[in-house]
């Protein structure tokens, strides 16, 4: 009899409760990840809180994506702990995790030419058989509207441009409606307008109480949209805090091995980060007819 109820308990997954604003949704502590012989992360730690956009920045190969994979529960670290939704990441099953966090990978692939609407609807798969299945249509429509992909809903994914694919992939992740969003370079393939759009969506999701982690290369975007920035460097998180506090010339110049200037935007006061360029280069670049 106990066996029977055990089977049933495993089958009916417990739906995740909404996290309170500011509560820690996911956390990595003292994480070490080794790839080949190189420790990509060593002693890295970060907390992800509900209602907050956390941007992970850092130079190429610093381990931003690896840290994101660790937070997603994809990668079991060699040392350290990872907790998602108050439980060790390894203790969740794949179906349980899928209700709690959504992940946008760096590249969007698809083996078969599914139409866009079906790709987005795949994001609803984790909720099949739960009471929230009823939200499927609404979630799909909302995600497609938010990412502006509705106009090519019927086109096959394979017929889209790189930027359009990236937005469809994001729509799928949004449609999943998980409390923790982990986005790996969602703006990489996008034009100016859609970069802003994506980060606006991130902020809206955070405002609605979700926790959003986004890996970014554009420090300006991070400064303008993130509540908190984690600078990944040397296998750990070198700095973690609000952009205004973290984005200092000294730290960024050291981390990126490139002298930078940081100054407040004249109108908004948001820190602007630009590489320090010598006057000559600027001159030739600005050499256009008046």
């Amino acid at each position, binding site marked *: 009899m106990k066996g029977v109820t055990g089977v049933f308990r495993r089958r009916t997954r417990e739906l995740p409760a909404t996290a309170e604003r500011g509560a820690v949704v996911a956390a990595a502590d003292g994480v070490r990840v080794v790839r080949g012989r190189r420790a990509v992360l060593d002693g890295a730690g970060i907390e992800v809180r509900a209602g907050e956009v956390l941007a992970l920045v850092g130079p190429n190969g610093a381990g931003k994506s690896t840290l994101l994979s660790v937070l997603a529960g*994809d990668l079991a670290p060699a040392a350290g702990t990872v907790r998602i939704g108050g439980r060790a990441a390894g203790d969740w099953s794949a*179906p349980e995790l899928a209700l709690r*966090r959504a992940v946008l990978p760096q590249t969007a692939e698809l083996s*078969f*030419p599914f139409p866009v609407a*079906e790709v987005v609807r795949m994001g609803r798969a984790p909720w099949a058989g739960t009471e929230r299945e009823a939200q499927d249509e609404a979630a799909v429509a909302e995600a497609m509207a938010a990412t*502006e992909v509705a106009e090519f809903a019927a086109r096959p994914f394979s017929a889209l441009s790189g930027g359009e694919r990236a937005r469809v992939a994001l729509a799928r992740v949004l449609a999943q409606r998980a409390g923790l969003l982990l986005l790996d370079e969602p703006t990489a393939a996008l034009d100016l307008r859609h970069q802003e759009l994506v980060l606006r969506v991130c902020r809206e999701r955070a405002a609605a109480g979700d926790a959003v982690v986004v890996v970014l290369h554009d420090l300006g975007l991070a400064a303008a949209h993130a509540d908190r920035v984690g600078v990944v460097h040397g296998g750990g998180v070198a700095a973690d805090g609000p952009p205004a506090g973290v984005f200092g010339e000294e730290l960024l110049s050291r981390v990126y091995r490139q002298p930078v200037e940081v100054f407040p935007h004249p109108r908004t006061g948001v820190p602007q980060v630009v590489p320090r360029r010598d006057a000559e280069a600027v001159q030739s670049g600005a050499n256009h007819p008046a």
Partner: protein
Amino acid sequence: MTAVRERPVLPAALAAAPPPPRHGRAALLTGGLLAALLLLALLSAGVGAYDIPLGDVLASVQHRTGLGGHALDRTAESVLWNIRLPRVVLALLVGASLGCAGALMQGVFGNPLAEPGVIGVSSGAAVGAVGAIVLGAGFLGTWTVTVFAFAGGLVTVVAVYAMSRSGGRTEVVTLILTGIAVTAFAGALIGLFIFFADNAQISQITFWQLGSLAQATWPKVLAVLPCALLGLAVAPLYARRLDLLALGEGPARHLGVEVERLRIALILVVALLTAAAVAVSGIVTFVGLVVPHVLRMANGPGHRFLIPGSALGGAVALTAGDLAARTLAAPAELPLGVLTALIGSPFFFWLLRRTRRKQGGWA
């Protein structure tokens, strides 16, 4: 004025209402395939060296199932029930197994070119079956060849899977090359078995290797029935997860699919289906490649229709193929495997060209 170019939000949200799913077309296709299958099966049961009119076929089937009708004369009754019908049923089972296995395999590998014949699984199953014939193994009765074929197919599919994957991806070139290597090795093993076989076994093996349903009997039908039915019954359960797998391994896992478990289960099912087909009919290639492809073009790549549809389509294709094999060169009989390869190879070629044109090459 940017405001003019700005896309208004409300119409976009309305347009986001997803397009109606293609239930209509799927139903139409299913109906069409079922009708074609029924027609072909009846035709195949009647046409041959000893023609039995369609009305008589129906009458006899009705008679035997207790739904009226009447019995035929002794010869017709015997031809129909001991020769034609087992063959029709076998063609149906083998075709369904091959079509379904093809659809599953393409889904698992995330690659439209995967097919039991192309990547060498059929050859592996053939090694098992030939081995059973030559060694004279009979400890499992009529199921011996099937069991050996299953073991051979399973070993091969696991080997191909393990060898052609690197870093969580299956590259097309590696997959096809692995298939070539595995087929060559299997060919060598079959050659070795033939070397040790006596004359009777050799003719049995040769005939069987060409792919044929000529020796269909009810016991043979029974020998593959459990394998085929089990495989066909289980396969549709994986449709949703196969759809998600198209996103790649990582995203599928993020959506709650236990990818490794899914892969192992599907590989078992593929081996089961391939073994069922190969054990009785030898190597019949390209059905598993062509049928899912045509259906994907007709109704999109969703596996919920594709898996049962491919089983149905495979049954249609093989019933038609066997009818053609029996009648085109009557009174002689073309080997079925030769016929499917004759039609399938150009299709495969066309597919390669088309994909190459579209993607500009292979990854």
